[in-house]
């Protein structure tokens, strides 16, 4: 159980750069809580405070009853932290890294092997290879094994899937699901909106503030806009033409489509006609269900 109350953190001499502006949330035992937001939103600062690596300016954090400022030594025993950048010893082998962190936590690989078995087995054939020579996905698995080796009650994973290929990303989330089954509370951050659905609850973070927090479905249910997708023609000109329409509230590119929100009363064929007049013949407009990213866009505008 993690309880965070009104957390503030600023950097720089006069506190000019605000990283966190009053963050409050609770993570229940045994759930996967995702903090989702773009780069520079304050995710890493938040996680570093939770991992007892930096001190907040104000606010309180309690992890399983321990206060993060006062009882940081106890906190370090019960959390497993995985920084965003691969931070294991590149010049030590896979096995040496794991053994090293096990020893620092006064435990052995054998003692908690059952916990990491699933993950570690996949990289065990390369256990004598130096960590620096592993592929991105394997590095991620090793880092997770090292974070788990002391049997933490809470895992704090800072952007674990950044820079990892889609297959490894999926595998990684499957592993988190299995860890969750073992009763481990997982706090994870990501910049990939599509990963939000893998969490039990998510919080959207922007400029050091949570702009929304709910279950992924709850966030989507709260979405009140009329959302259409638009396909056809030259994307960039289409985007600017749509933005000039008085009844279109917002429009963003989503891969090969455009997602637009419109004011009430506008019909799809009205817009189609409007675009036809502007010279777009093959336009396809459909009402669609919002994704987390649509919600994020709506919440930020």
């Amino acid at each position, binding site marked *: 159980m993690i309880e965070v109350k009104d957390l503030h953190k600023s950097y720089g001499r006069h506190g000019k750069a605000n990283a966190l502006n009053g963050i409050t949330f609770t993570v229940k035992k045994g759930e996967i809580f995702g903090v989702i937001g773009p780069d520079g939103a304050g995710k890493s600062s938040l996680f570093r405070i939770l*991992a*007892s*690596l*930096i*001190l907040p300016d104000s606010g309180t954090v309690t992890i399983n009853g321990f206060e993060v400022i006062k009882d*940081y*030594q106890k906190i*370090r*025993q019960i*959390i497993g*932290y995985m*920084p965003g*950048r*691969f*931070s*294991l*010893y*590149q*010049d*030590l082998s896979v096995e*040496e890294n794991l053994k*090293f*962190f096990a*020893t*620092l*936590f*006064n435990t052995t690989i054998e003692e908690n092997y059952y916990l990491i078995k699933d993950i570690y087995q996949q990289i065990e054939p390369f256990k004598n290879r*130096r960590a620096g020579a592993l592929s991105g996905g394997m590095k991620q698995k090793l880092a997770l094994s*090292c974070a788990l080796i002391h049997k933490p009650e809470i895992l704090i994973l800072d952007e674990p899937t950044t820079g990892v290929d889609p297959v490894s990303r999926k595998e990684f989330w499957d592993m988190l699901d299995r860890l969750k089954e073992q009763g481990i509370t997982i706090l994870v951050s990501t910049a990939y909106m599509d990963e939000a659905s893998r969490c039990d609850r998510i919080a959207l973070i922007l400029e050091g503030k949570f702009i929304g927090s709910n279950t992924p479905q709850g966030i989507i249910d709260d979405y009140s806009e009329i959302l259409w997708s638009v396909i056809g023609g030259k994307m960039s000109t289409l985007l600017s033409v749509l933005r000039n329409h008085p009844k279109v509230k917002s429009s963003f590119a989503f891969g090969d489509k455009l997602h637009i929100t419109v004011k009430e009363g506008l019909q799809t064929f009205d817009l189609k006609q409007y675009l036809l007049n502007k010279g777009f013949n093959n336009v396809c407009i459909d009402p669609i269900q919002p994704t987390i990213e649509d919600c994020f866009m709506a919440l930020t505008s």
Partner: protein
Amino acid sequence: MKTIKFLIEKEFKQMFRNPLIPRMIVAYPIMVILVFPWAISFEIKNIKIDVVDHNKSTYSRRLTEKIEASRYFILNATPPDYQTAMQNMESGETDMIMEIPSSFDKELIKNRTSGVGMAVNSVNGTQGLLGSNYIMQIVNDFSSELRGELMHTLPLKTRASMIKMPKIEILQQYKFNPALDYKNFMIPGFMVLLLTLICGILPALNIVMEKENGTINQINVTPVNRIVFILAKLIPFWIVGLVVMIISVSAAYLLYGLWPTGNIIAVLLSAIVFIISISGLGIIISNYSETMQQASFLVMFFILILILLGGMFTPISSMPTWAQTIAYINPFTYLTNTFRMLYLNGSSLADVSGNLMNLGIIAVVLNGWAVISYKKRG
């Protein structure tokens, strides 16, 4: 206990997996002891001299030959006039000019005295000063030689009074370094230099490397005690320092036959205390730096101060007071002094105990600081 053993093991693994560092630890001392003592010497030799001989007599030629025969001088040219010689000096061909007047031999015979003119390029102050001293010696030698030869030309009465005149001759006796071999003086200094470089730079770059690689974050979230962590960082460098010391003592003996006339145990013991203090300094620098670039810049800056204000090249007694104050808290000073005492003066452990105590105090202060300045959270 198990943790510290494992941490040290990790440091050594990393050290030996780096292809350069183990080789450097062996090659560096050998190279320094092999090469530098020949090049870094304050003996002034091979001063180039022009002799302008207006006299062209047997006497003037004898004086010129005497200069040419000296190991300090190289006779560059014998130009016909002072102007040409001056041009030579301006173009850098010569360092000194001696002008022998045309009346040199006549005056010598008639008055038993004569003078020569000297001009010295003193851009390099030491060379200028020593050069003119050497010339003075040669000229004095020459004049006493002549005095003996010309004695019979004097009237009997003067001769008698001259023989009665007391004659003082200075007999120099060089203690501790009888051959006046500059190498013997410099090699103990080079050993200190080596320890400073290796045991100062390597630790300074160590923790900051963990910062750059992000591994420090992983260490900081473990329950490892910071004293244990810093000790595990320091101990490998103490061992490396001792290895470097053993290699340089052996190299000095094998290459130059230089062995401490004093206690060898005292040499190693004082080296260990010094290594402890200097590696503490390295760790402090590492703790305060965020990047390798900062750390290397800082460590170079401090090492330069330690070396230049440590009495290896220039005696501390001739420094201004503020520099002497720095030298007084500089571990380099104490070890250079101790090594020279042990190598040249044949001192015992008791003789250098004062220096050892000062080194010990510096070591405690620096290492305490190294532990305190390491923060497990920012």
